[in-house]
């Protein structure tokens, strides 16, 4: 097992991972907490938050790459799983506010506002952190499992599957927009005070959340790499390239796809749970179809089916977004739109794919060649 883990990456790969770990666990905390504020090397809360946010996005991109790049399933609903993880964590954070809300009630402000007297049944246990962790894993996982079970059973694939996932996230967005649903309606959850007793406004808590995000991102990357290099990963790729042939060869393709799909959704849920305490808000707009499609472009920019590529894509696109929306907000949509068009036309395998392709051109054909009917 350990030997297999060691072989996941070559020396350069492990070197890069170690460098990332040092940066995330040592350099960033030191620059934030130990370097005095007036120093030019000091890292402000803004950048810690930005980096933490982008790492969460990178994790979602990784999750989408796992199903899109290796199983050929393009989900346009991954924002839903991300938001569900976020809402699961958000419920716990709302309970942590205690009676410090605007109305000094043990109920969250929005429930007081609706004139509710007690928590609805599905809020039971939301005051325990372990319950929140369980929900972060189970809610997106179960939804994905049930949805996937039905979808893969009736062999929905290609654009049909994409559109249905989009409808799914759209339906959930409408549901969560309603006040009566019990998740804060339009405004969602916000005004969090603390997590596990630590105040969220404290720089130490922020850095700890940042480090936790980095840790989970690394674990997710290694887990994905482990899966795609295993026999499971090879079967998955084979299903992507020729599903009928795999079925004739006696593989139960539905179960393979279902596992990949559910695993990916759980990863998204974890990313959402890490995202919410850092940015301090979760609302239904995270479930909007547009958000989910944006995830796909992060993956496409970096390179599908490379695992590392989506991380790079998420960093580049979101970095550009946070810069452009400040400098020239009216150009952001042009930029994003052009990115969609140009990447699919000229960089079909993304940045990483293009680099690999150059290296491998001498030998065999590029790893990735999507083959889909209809």
């Amino acid at each position, binding site marked *: 097992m350990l030997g297999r883990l060691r072989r996941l990456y070559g020396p350069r790969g492990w070197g890069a991972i170690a460098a990332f770990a040092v940066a995330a666990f040592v350099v960033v905390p030191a620059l934030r907490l130990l370097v005095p504020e007036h120093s030019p090397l000091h890292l402000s809360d803004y950048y810690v938050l930005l980096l933490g946010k982008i790492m969460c996005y990178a994790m979602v991109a990784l999750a989408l790459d796992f199903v899109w790049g290796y199983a050929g399933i393009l989900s346009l609903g991954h924002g839903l799983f991300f938001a569900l993880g976020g809402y699961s964590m958000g419920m716990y954070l709302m309970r942590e506010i205690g009676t410090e809300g605007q109305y000094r009630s043990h109920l969250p402000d929005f429930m007081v506002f609706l004139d509710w007297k007690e928590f609805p049944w599905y809020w039971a246990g939301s005051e325990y952190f372990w319950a929140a962790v369980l929900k972060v894993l189970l809610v997106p996982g179960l939804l994905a499992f049930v949805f996937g079970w039905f979808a893969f*059973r009736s062999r929905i694939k290609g654009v049909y599957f994409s559109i249905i996932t989009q409808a799914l996230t759209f339906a959930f967005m409408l549901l969560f927009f309603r006040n009566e649903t019990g998740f804060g309606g339009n405004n969602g959850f916000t005004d969090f005070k603390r997590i596990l007793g630590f105040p969220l406004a404290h720089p130490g808590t922020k850095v700890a959340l940042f480090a936790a995000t980095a840790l989970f991102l690394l674990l997710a990357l290694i887990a994905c790499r482990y899966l795609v290099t295993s026999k499971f990963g090879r079967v998955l790729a084979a299903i992507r390239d020729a599903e009928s042939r795999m079925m004739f060869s006696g593989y139960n393709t539905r179960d393979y796809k279902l596992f990949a799909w559910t695993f990916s959704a759980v990863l998204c849920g974890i990313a959402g749970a890490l995202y919410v305490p850092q940015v301090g808000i979760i609302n239904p707009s995270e479930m909007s179809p547009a958000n989910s499609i944006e995830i796909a472009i992060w993956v496409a920019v970096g390179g599908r089916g490379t695992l590392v590529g989506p991380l790079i894509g998420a960093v580049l696109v979101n970095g550009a977004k946070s810069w452009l929306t400040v400098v020239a907000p009216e150009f952001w949509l042009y930029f994003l739109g052009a990115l969609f068009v140009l990447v699919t036309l000229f960089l079909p395998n993304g940045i990483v794919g293009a680099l690999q392709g150059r290296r491998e051109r001498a030998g065999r054909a590029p790893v990735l060649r999507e083959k889909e009917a209809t």
Partner: protein
Amino acid sequence: MPKSRLIALLLAGWLLALAAPAHALDAAAVAQLAAEDSAAKIEAVGKLAADGDAAAIPILRALQNDELYAAEGRILIVRGDAATDALTGEPVDTAAAAPEPIVVNNRIRNAIDSALAGLRLVAPERELRLAAARELAGGAGAAMLPLIRAALERESDAEIADLLAQAAATIEIGSPDPEVRRGAVRVLGRSDRPQTLELLAGLLRRNADGDFVEPDAAVRAEAEAAIATIEARLFVPRAIGALFSGLSLGSVLLLAALGLAITFGLMGIINMAHGEMLMIGAYTTFVVQTIFRRYFPEAFDAYLLVAVPAAFLAAGLVGVALERTIIRHLYGRPLETLLTTWGISLILIQAVRTVFGAQNVEVANPSWMSGGFHLGADVVLPSNRVAIVLFAALVVLLVGLFLARTRLGLCVRAVTQNRAMADCMGIPTPRVDWMTFGLGSGIAGLGGVALSQIGNVGPDLGQSYIVDSFMVVVLGGVGQLWGTIIAAIGLGEVNKFLEPYAGAVLGKIFVLVFIILFIQKRPQGLFALKGRAAEA
């Protein structure tokens, strides 16, 4: 003094002169309007109304518009700088009098509304009387009863008389005499207004002590019978109204989804920018409308005749340009086409924002589209919606004829069924592709014209329809005209049918969940292509 203000002053003076009382109003009642107590004010309003003197109308109107002032025991109407005595119509110098405004609250406003309606009952014009009677039938104060009775005796028009009888009955239902109440309930049974139903149902309720609101059993029985007859009379127009609103939503969905279904069936690609073709059509309508308003205002009602072909061409040309420059390079890569077209839609949205601004623009209906067809009771079919249903039917008919009767239509069907075989038979598939893509986009442009007539036109217009149009395509199956029609109308009807029970949002969620489940059973949609074409 600026000229405009002078004119306004003259006009006001002239109006007042017209309204100047030829004979004395009840001076005590007018003075009472300035009372501190709202109840006293309401009583005064009631008295003025009960007198049935048209001279009270300008005073009540002034009170309604906060133009009535009190100064040293006199009641003044103050408009701008000019003040006149409400009773005599003489101009008053306000500088010396320091008038104080007479404040009205909502209760007083209601009293004024019904008083004005009562006074208009004596007007010679039938339209005025009819409107006043409608207003009174919606609820009138008990003080109005003698006035209504008097008007009822004089009234020769059957429709107005009926409304007046109902107005009187609505008041008499509170009478202490059970016989009068029974008679009132019987009269109300002739009504077809939903408010009357509520009023009658109120009689059958029990109050907090468990007693009936209406103590007399005979009156209750009469009320039950009245409710039954009213409901029976309302049933048909209401059912038609509900069916129609579903049909109208379905027509909109159909116009939005028809082009999508054709291109999806033909090329197997999902055009995420399809919603933006709707938007382009709607904005083209806006531009045509603006040009007409500025240069040919006399022909404004005909602007749609230009807007329809213009929108078709604009959206169609954009579609052809997209197909030629971008989409044709992506055939065989459907998932990436989906992302690319999404990117195109973002660019188009932002472009429209840059050109027209992020705010919604106003598209006016031509005058022949305003109003509606009254179906009896409270059901009205708005003309613009009727026009859209007819328009959608026309478009579908033309598309059907195109597919069935033209050579290009034949080619489209052939390529949809089996692209490779069509290619082998010498059909120029690339040309079929771009022409069809242009056609599909043009149809969406037509949809945009329709949408501009019933809703807001803004850069996000297309986004709000895109998920729904996909659902129509998924439900109807690809490349199937009939499937698309039935899916669109069906979704419209189901949405509107669920709305009263579940609310608009939950209804929509139910529909989405239903579609997701439906696809499990029939992955190819309602009307699957049979034979070899089914497994592409």
